[in-house]
């Protein structure tokens, strides 16, 4: 019985990593979509569907574990944190897809804005990678690093916002493009938040303490 439970926990672990990897792929795809002109929407949609499917799979696995095995202590934490993590991962997948869907409208923006967006995407992508990596390695330090680096993405978003406000007020620019730009920036900022959440759940799983940090997600 115990053995079966352990195998199932291991399966849960594996599936979580797989889902995390999928999210990484999606966000990397969004970065690629920013840089070159190819159309990634279809690929991204397929991947996003897979993320959704995995979410429900993992959810039912977690439920089965909770109901049938009634885990306690660390095992319980691993299941409950998994349940929370998958919803964050699912959001990351969604938002990456959202970015890819509107990215073609911002291709013509000025170099400076593009540079900021790229920087944001890199930072957010690194956060996602690191949070998944922290989970894989069960690395407390890395998880804390991720939580700390959220400020960087937030700061970048603020800079971006100010810049866009200035640009719009100064010149008669293409309003739609700038709104899309700010949307993309916001998406990345949100992805950063979700990555932070994942890192917090990793910490919770490892230490048993819920880090009360990120207020808004």
């Amino acid at each position, binding site marked *: 019985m115990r053995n079966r439970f352990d195998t199932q926990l*291991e399966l849960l*672990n*594996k599936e979580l*990593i*797989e889902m*995390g*990897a999928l999210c*990484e*792929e999606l966000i990397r795809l969004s970065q690629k979509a920013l840089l070159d002109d190819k159309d990634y929407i279809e690929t991204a949609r397929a991947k996003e569907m897979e993320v959704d499917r995995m979410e429900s799979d993992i959810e039912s696995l977690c439920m089965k574990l909770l109901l049938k095995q009634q885990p306690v202590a660390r095992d319980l934490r691993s299941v409950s944190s998994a349940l929370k993590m998958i919803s964050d991962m699912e959001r990351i997948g969604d938002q990456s897809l959202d970015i890819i869907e509107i990215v073609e409208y911002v291709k013509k923006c000025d170099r400076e804005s593009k540079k900021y967006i790229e920087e944001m995407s890199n930072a957010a992508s690194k956060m996602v990678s690191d949070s*998944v990596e922290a989970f*894989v*390695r069960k*690395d407390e330090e890395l998880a804390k690093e991720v939580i700390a680096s959220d400020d960087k993405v937030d700061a970048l978003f603020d800079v971006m916002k100010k810049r866009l406000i200035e640009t719009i007020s100064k010149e008669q620019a293409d309003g739609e493009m700038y709104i899309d730009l700010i949307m993309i920036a916001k998406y990345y900022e949100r992805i950063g938040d979700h990555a932070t959440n994942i890192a917090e759940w990793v910490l919770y799983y490892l230490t048993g303490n819920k880090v009360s940090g990120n207020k808004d997600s």
Partner: protein
Amino acid sequence: MIKRIFKNTFWVSMVTLLIAYVIIVGILYDYFDRQIKTELKTEAEYIACGIESVGEDYLDSFDQNQYVNDKVSTSQAHKNRITWVDSDGTVLFDSDVDTEKMENHKDREEIQSALKDGEGYTVRFSHTLDEQTIYYAVELPDGSVLRVSSAYNTVVAIIMAMMQPTLFLVLLIIVLSYFMSKSVAKRIVAPINNMDLMYGEMDEEYEELVPLLKRIRKQNILIDEQMDDLKTQQAKFQALTEHMREGFLVLDKKENVMSYNKAAVELLGASKDIDYTGHNVIQFDRERSLREAVDEAIDGVRTQRTLENGDRIYRIVANPIVIQDVVKDETVEEQAPKADTVPKDQVEGAVVIILDETEKEKREQLRREFTSNVSHELKTPLTSISGVAEIIMNGIVKQEDIPGFAKNIYEEAARLIDLVNDIIFLSKLDEDSSIGYQPEMISLLDMAKEVKTRLKMPCQEKDVSIHIVGEDVQMEGVASMVEEVVYNLCDNGIKYNKEGGKVAVTLRKVTENDIPYAAIEVADTGIGIAQDDQERVFERFYRVDKSHSKAIGGTGLGLSIVKHVVLFHHGHIKIDSVPGEGTTITVFLPIHYAVESC
């Protein structure tokens, strides 16, 4: 073992004790039995004599417990019962019981046998006295029978009497045998414990154990050798995998990592602090292409994948591990290398090799660029030659224009020849370059002057002057190569110069890291090279001006040749340029020719 020996010894003592006890009791019983019988007989005879001489009244003295036998009473606590029975069975006298109440005794066994044989013994239960009794009857001369009997519970009494000392003895033996068997057991076991199972002399205390010992030693030595073998093999494997530059992963059927090397950790960016053995491969790296390759390998398909990790490109080769039965081996082995797939149920795991192909990929890309450049460069002059030739062939050209067209053809052909020469020169350098070149002493000043003379024509065309300054540096090197360097540098200096510009060639000696170098500095006042392009101008066919314009001419190989020659001589190049103002390229060549090639 000690316990067992102890237990056995102990039981043996106990059983011996019990048997001895039973035998002794048996012997004693027999002895007392006889004793009682003799006693009864003696007494009966004695009483018979008494009756004969004294008559019936003699018996009365025994009645009512008055009978005291001097001889017996002292040794026996109870007195014997005496009965006198008439020949017809009527009881005439009984010492213990009232005669009146007693029945006829004729049917009693002892009396029967006394009447018949003169005497008789019986041991039976007396109904009269309600106890086990031994009887002795004797026939008197008058035909009556005198019977003497005694209670027969004596055996139990003996045992009971012996009980106390026996119990004491048992206790004593228990204690004694406890200590003795313990020490005996220890003494038996001690040599066994002290046995040397590996080496040492064979004159063991226990002969019986020698064959066993021999076998154990043999096996121990065998195991030792096998362990050593295994260790060496493991060390070999370790050394092999650890020093491989390729990443190496061994996975089991469930895609768990069984073994991996340092390179795999480094290439895939896994953590050095974690032992991944026994974990799923997804923890090692969660890149999709690796996972897919592993999945396919586990399904029995040999696969290759490309994995992009940041700006590095890796090739992943995943092969299924098939463990074949020895019997099957012969038949399968013939097809094994060919088959790209193996049945899934035979797969025991997978081997993954990760190759860093970034450099290869980059070189491949350069080669592709080079090929396309070469074909382009070759095609352009050929197209114009064939075009012009076609016009002339068709007779469209007037007679007087023919020399002009011929000049065109000539120039393009010359360009082609230049190009081909340069390519040949470069490819010679690309090959094993040290062969066929003899270093000699070169006077750089003379060489520069000669180059200046050779470049007089282009100089005049562009109104550019060449100034040679500096000392006459003597260096060791391959003259034809170094001349190419100076020529190409000066040629570029003229070509990319402005009208009326200058090219300054400065020669001097410098010492860097204790190695004396000849420095050839060529500075022009030309158009300069932008920062981004400075790195790339040494690439083959790379031109800052992408139009491959014919106006400037040249093959696009000049600086590439310079770079190769400098590398050949183990020198280095410095480039310094401000767009619009001019370019200074300094070439450092070691004064002493280094033998080994680059």
